[in-house]
């Protein structure tokens, strides 16, 4: 090997691992929580700085936003708004879960149902269903019904398709095992197929819930301002930007925490094979 090529060898190292970084940085990097806090602090500082410049008259500082968030939490207006937002969301998610899982499982178990149903749900999953919102308003007015509908159309396709895939992709050897030990059809479905599909179905419910949150907020912004959507629109019209940003940050935090929580439940209770890995 010539000296020139040897010189090149360490050049690719930094892409693989930070070999040349100082010691303190390395110990910091090995602690995921420390870096998380650093990451959050960087973003908070950048936000604070951008707010103080200010980059835009409608960009409040991090401090102002945090203060607005705490005052809305303290006077109970934010929790009340969340309770309002959660009504159509909860109804919509419950409806799409029951109906969606049933449709998905039926498509996974029966080839005729699959033939009939899968293409339309693939189209629906790819399609920008948000465009249906104006139609729903026209058809069902501006009440809770429309909002529930919006949540459903956003959440349903992913729930259906995940349930379908989960059932369809039951490991072949488990099905053969069941048959070789004389399982009848109900036993095969109940004890093997559905049980094996449960984690993926649940993951679909988690994705559906995330999509449902998008729908619930969209409904409040487009249909009638209620709940969190009301705080956002009202604060925007009165140029109370800290409140507006705080409400948005609040709804994002709540939805992310809720979805992370569902992910934790999935890992903890439904996937014993991954319990030790995590």
């Amino acid at each position, binding site marked *: 090997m010539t000296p020139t090529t040897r010189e*090149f060898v360490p050049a690719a190292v930094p892409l693989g691992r930070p070999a040349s970084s100082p010691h303190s940085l390395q110990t910091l990097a090995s602690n995921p929580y420390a870096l998380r806090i650093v990451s959050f602090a960087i973003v908070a500082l950048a936000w604070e700085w951008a707010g103080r410049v200010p980059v835009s008259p409608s960009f409040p500082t991090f401090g102002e936003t945090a203060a607005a968030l705490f005052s809305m939490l303290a006077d109970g207006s934010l929790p009340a708004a969340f309770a309002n937002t959660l009504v159509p969301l909860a109804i919509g998610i419950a409806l799409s879960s029951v109906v969606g899982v049933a449709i998905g499982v039926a498509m996974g178990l029966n080839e005729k149902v*699959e*033939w009939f149903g899968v293409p339309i749900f693939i189209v629906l999953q790819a399609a920008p269903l948000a*465009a249906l919102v104006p139609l729903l308003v026209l058809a069902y007015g501006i009440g809770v019904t429309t909002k529930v509908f919006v949540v459903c159309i956003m959440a349903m396709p992913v729930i259906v398709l995940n349930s379908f895939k989960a059932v369809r992709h039951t490991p072949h050897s488990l099905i053969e095992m069941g048959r070789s030990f004389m399982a009848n059809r109900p036993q095969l479905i109940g004890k093997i197929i559905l049980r094996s599909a449960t984690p993926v179905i649940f993951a679909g419910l988690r994705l559906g819930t995330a999509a449902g949150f998008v729908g619930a907020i969209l409904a409040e912004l487009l249909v009638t301002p209620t709940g969190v959507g009301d705080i956002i629109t009202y604060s925007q019209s009165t140029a109370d930007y800290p409140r507006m940003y705080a409400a948005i940050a609040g709804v*994002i935090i709540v939805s992310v925490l809720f979805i992370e929580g569902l992910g934790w439940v999935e890992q903890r209770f439904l996937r014993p094979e991954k319990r030790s890995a995590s």
Partner: protein
Amino acid sequence: MIINGTRVPAVFSLLIWAVLWEIVGRLGLTILIPPLSTTIEKLVEIVGTPGFWDALGLTLKTFVIGSVISILAGIPIGILMGRLPVLDRLLLPWVNTFISAPLSALVPVVMALFGFGETTIILTVVLFAIWIIILDARAGAHAISPSLVEMARVYGATNWQAFSKIFVLSAMPEILTGVRLGLLRAVKGVIIGQLLVSVVGFGRLFEIYSSNFLMEHMWALLLVLFALASAIDTAFGLIERRVEHFASSRN
């Protein structure tokens, strides 16, 4: 499904759905659903108007610009995250947050900062599309076999060569999946952005149609948008299948 011994492709079930749509529409069960035939008539009518082409042009323009930004920024960020643990730990919490966050709530912020124009819609597209592209590029970078990286080092690849010749190419299957999912999210973003901005493009058309109770017109626009989304999905699925040999040879 097999009828009379011949296999009928599943896509044909969409024709049955079209017939069902027509029947439900004709029966007048709900004002939500007008017959498919009148919708198509209205579609032909709308396609002749300059307003439609303006809206379509704006949609395509913002969609393309937003998608290109997401792809050009998302892929390098994702690959770097996959190769640099510190950067990964710094950015991953945010990527994970935004990938499951209700992004529709952030559109008002973009509107407050950038007004009611094209910029806002482009940024909405980026906001919707970029996270999944980053995450999948990162997964692709994780899937690169260590021996391939070592091979590059043994043969004296520079950082840039390793990045462009090894990482991007061998992470290609995951990257393409990410881009396809990102583009689908971008379609949703471009529509949600226009609906919320509501003074330009299809958002404006929807606004006009709904204030005039023109249900068929709205469905006609929907047909266009659904077709657009399906076309992007199908086209990208085909491209993905063509590079599948990458993935199989990698294992």
